[in-house]
């Protein structure tokens, strides 16, 4: 589905990561040095940020949000809606956005809700936020997008253990009648839902001692039904076949060509995949900024963290013709194209391991 939104400006972006850095080289102890080196070479993921036990995506998104609001000079009372995009919310209920409204000190008349999406989540979040603003339902929206993916990955799963990192981001969206149009292309194919799934933990398969048991897989890995299961081959096939077509469509809508686009910001899944997508589009890798070397695949947060890591100066100083594309779990995909900036890009926030909110226990002992 292709849509265009007018009168909406992205005012700023901030990102926060845990202080703890894990080098993928260390995985040689578990998988063998040669195997770890091979995975690093193919994926491009050299190191990742990993949250402390008990730290949640909200614990990362909130410092990013605080920093962004301060850098923008936005009064917290001016935020009309808060959207929290994550697959690793604090609780099954309530919605994390409700807790974050309080922790950020936003006003009680602020709308707050969660969106549960992964790799495509940032684009979907921008689509919903800009749609609210364009419809006149909100003047300012704070979009928080973050994930603690490492919590759902078993360290003994060769296919996934070295890919994922943790991050939280904040993006400010506001009404601006002079803003150039944003063009969106969104899609879904739930037939591929099985290719990237955490089987247990929802209502379909409740968590139990059985779902926590480790099981061996064909490739010699181990994981439980409560861990993420990824069929990398099927995800790669989907990504390299659907994504180029989506990007061509959104670039046409935005009247952007391979020569006029300043940067193609792709979901940071793995470098080999991104090179293949760029090659299909005949866009040189010099126009494809990367953040995965430093942060790995942070799910829905990869697009904003790449803006902060690799495009901060161009976005602070002037307009950039960008395409942002997210794709993966769902299967779900989305791209947005248009002219972004100048905007506030806050410096990367590093969050200490001790920064986390206490557990709500419902009156029971932990």
């Amino acid at each position, binding site marked *: 589905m292709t849509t265009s939104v007018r009168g909406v400006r992205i005012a700023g972006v901030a990102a926060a990561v845990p202080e703890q850095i894990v080098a993928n080289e260390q995985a040689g102890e578990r998988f063998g040095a040669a195997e770890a080196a091979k995975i690093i070479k193919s994926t491009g993921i050299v190191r990742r940020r990993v949250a402390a036990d008990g730290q949640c995506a909200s614990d990362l998104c909130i410092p990013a949000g605080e920093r962004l609001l301060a850098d923008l000079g936005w009064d917290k009372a001016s935020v009309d809606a808060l959207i929290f995009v994550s697959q690793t919310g604090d609780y099954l209920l309530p919605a994390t956005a409700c807790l974050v409204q309080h922790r950020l000190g936003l006003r009680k008349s602020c709308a707050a809700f969660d969106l549960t999406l992964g790799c495509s989540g940032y684009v979907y979040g921008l689509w919903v936020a800009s749609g609210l603003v364009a419809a006149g339902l909100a003047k300012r929206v704070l979009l928080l997008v973050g994930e603690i993916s490492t919590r759902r990955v078993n360290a003994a799963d060769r296919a996934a253990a070295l890919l994922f990192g943790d991050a939280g981001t904040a993006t400010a969206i506001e009404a601006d009648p002079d803003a150039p149009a944003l063009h969106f292309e969104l899609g879904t194919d739930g037939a591929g839902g099985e290719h990237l799934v955490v089987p247990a933990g929802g209502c379909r398969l409740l968590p139990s001692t059985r779902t926590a048991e480790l099981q061996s897989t064909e490739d010699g890995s181990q994981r439980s039904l409560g861990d993420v299961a990824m069929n990398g081959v099927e995800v790669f096939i989907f990504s*390299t076949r659907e994504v180029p077509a989506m990007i061509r469509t959104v670039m046409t809508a935005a009247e952007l060509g391979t020569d006029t686009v300043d940067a193609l910001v792709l979901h940071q899944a793995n470098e080999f995949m991104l090179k293949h997508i760029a090659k299909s589009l005949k866009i040189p890798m010099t126009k494809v900024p990367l953040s995965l070397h430093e942060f790995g695949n942070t799910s829905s947060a990869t697009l904003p963290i790449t803006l902060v890591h690799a495009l901060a100066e161009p976005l602070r100083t002037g307009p950039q013709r960008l395409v942002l594309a997210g794709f993966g779990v769902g299967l779900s995909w989305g791209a947005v194209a248009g002219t972004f900036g100048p905007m506030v890009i806050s410096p990367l926030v590093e969050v200490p391991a001790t920064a986390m909110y206490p557990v709500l226990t419902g009156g029971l002992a932990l």
Partner: protein
Amino acid sequence: MTTDQFLIHLDEILNRAEGTTKRGEALADTEGWDSLAMLGLIALADSDLDTRLTGKQLTAAKTTDDLIAMVAEKLS
């Protein structure tokens, strides 16, 4: 691309010295034949042989001859 050239591409995908991969080689005994190698083959077939391989085809393949058969129409 000839079959011999395809086998050389397989060497590269499997991180082997050129000329190592032979016809009829059992994939189960081939070091390096894993999901990352499958991604390499899918990309090669897409970009150089205009052939769209499927995950089922790749997981069902037993020997290098099965891999050659998947792209045989495009090999000279």
